[in-house]
């Protein structure tokens, strides 16, 4: 039985969120490569950045 990797899972997820900017997908994938200690902060920053001013 195939067990998806985090990368595969994320890819499939992002396809369902295709109305979000491409910037989101790119940065989300970059965050996945980060150390886990930094990731929640990076994700928060990503959402804030995309929320605009």
């Amino acid at each position: 039985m195939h067990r998806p990797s985090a990368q595969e899972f994320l890819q499939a997820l992002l396809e369902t969120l295709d109305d979000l900017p491409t910037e989101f997908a790119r940065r989300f994938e970059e965050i996945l490569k980060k150390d886990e200690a930094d990731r929640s902060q990076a994700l928060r920053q990503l959402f804030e950045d995309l929320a605009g001013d």
Partner: protein
Amino acid sequence: MRAFRGIPGEMTVDFGKGDSMVIYGDNGTGKSTIADALEWYFTGGIDFLSHEGRQHAVSYVGGERGEATSVEVFTNGSLGGKIVIPDERSVETFQAIRRETFLLRGRTLADFINKTKTEKWKSLVEILGLEAIENLREDLQRARNELRKLSKAGDEEVRSYRRALGSGSDDVSDDMVLGSLQQICTMLGVDPPQTLDQAIDPSWLTAAAGASAAVSKGSDRERLLAEIKTLSPPAFDRRAVEAWNELVSSDRAKLLPRASLVREAKRLFETGSTDKGRCPLCGQKVDDTSLAQRIERALADVMAASRDLESVRDSVAQLADDLEAAHDLRRSIHTRGSAMELELPPVPDLPHVVLSNSVEALAPVTVDAIASAVSDLRKWDRSAGTIAGKASSAEPGSRDTQLVMLAALCQQVNAWRVAEKKAARAHRALALAERVFDAYQSRQKDDLTELLKQISLRVAKIYATLHPGENLDAVSVEPWTAKGIELAIEFHGSRQRPPHGVLSESHLNSLAIALFLAMAESFNEQIGFLLLDDVINSFDVEHRGRLAEILADEFSEWQIIVLTHDQPFFEHLSRRAPSWRRLEFTSWSHASGPRTTQYETTDILRDAHERLDRGDTHDAAARARRALEELLQEVCEALWAPLPFRRGQANDKREIGELLKGLRRTLKERAKPQLESLEPLLKNLEADVGAALNVAVHASRARPGGSEVRSALERIAVLDDTWTCPECRTRVWHRGTPDAGRCKCGQSSFPPVRLLTGR
């Protein structure tokens, strides 16, 4: 396995080329050491020994000096290798392997089943190798939670600004705030902002403040107040007035009225308009010269008096003018002040008219009256100044306050607007985070649900095979919450989740075995063996039989290693799966560790050679003696050598002499030529046992040297080779019976064909 757990020296278990094996042994014979070794090798630890104070027991406790603990595993893939204590493998080494299911022990059989929903989730996530996905989900959740807090704080900040702007009520609209701004602007006399965005524009506030200042400076009231503040009475020079009075009161002042007359006389005289010898004034006959002189003197006197008069008159006349101007100014101020509701005292009367008249009439003036008037004027000025001061000090303060109010309001509006923007941004960020998190979690749950569905089908099938006709079916593993899973079962028409309330211990154990087998089947990618250590303890004979069938039939593609202390199950499984290897642990002793039905002559010989190479002749001799025992036991067992019956573990402790006797007897009966050819070797070995391989002799002075032990080892190896096919390296009794045995390839046999032919 070397110096590992209950093994003092070395023990090898031969699984062939991935053959399944059923291993039997009574309690304490050391069979679980195999499970421990594989668990340690593949996971880096032994769960049972992971608690504090137990880890040292991975090594043989009280083991031989300098013996390093090691486990070596041979595989047909890349997982094989040798691990030596200290185990320096990192946690990452086991990351992939930890996802594999391969070991199920009786003592932890129901561990998974008894876990909480969340623990089951975590275990399954680990087994499924979904930690990375789960970890990212947790990071997303943390980010979402932080944004939630941020959004809440933003809302609270907005509310606090609204309350401040709404005087305690947070029901504030833009129009209400604009109204407040307009009110202040009206007071300041500046144009109000049309929108709140205009109000928070710093340039608008600057312009409004400037306009306010301009309006204030240009007002009549401001000017009047400023004018009052600058009032001061005219300068009063008492000495000048007194000099005036003195002059006009003197005789010389009497000349002054004549001055014009004298000037006229002089003009007439000088122009010759008068008769000669007559006075141009009175017409009397006078001497011209004398007349001229008299006119000149009179004129000089008049002129002198006039100059004196002029010198004091200007000061007094100026005073009269100043008083008049001062009076007029104060009257004007009073009038204007009244119009502006500025209550000024009545302007005192001043003697400027009297003073002017006195100047005209060359009359003296009352100095004290003038001084008193100037004093009154000063008092009025002071009084008016005080009133103006009060009025003006209140006036700019009010404006400043209004300006401060305006600035503060604009600042609050700005802060409100900024807080609203910040809160709106936090809301947007939160909405986005929640959307992504929900989508992530939903997908994760869907994926897991799909996986669980597949596992459930297999679990249900295995469970149904274990418990046919018990009306306990539809076993499944189901998502419980976003982060929990639970086992469920249909129990006579009702859904039981978890099933603990309706299943017996043995049923729960069956469920655990079914889950274990299904998960291994579904998810194992690297490990192709399954190890079940004493898992059938709670099963009755019938259910043990069904498990044997499942393992033999449905898992024939797997390498199954079953450890049991239940002999009927061992025998049943051996019959049900004849291709499986069998291994029996017969005894365990502290000195030599576990004894099994698997002979280890080759390994013991190799160990003896290694010790001899290290110069450890004593230990090498002991190992060589043990190898000879092992070999003779194997041959005697295989050839059914007639030996006296012994009960229990004593059977494993036969002396070499007894075993040689049994061998000779059986060879004499079935392969006499072979006995004859072997007899010299056997005699030499007997001699070795009494000398080179005699441990007691090794302690004496005349102890044998290494070369003698090496020779003995070579003789044992020759005897060992006697029973091994040179082609396929299997024993000559591999197939058949002791009366007619042969090796795997058929090239060698017992009794030896060549010898039989030669008979």
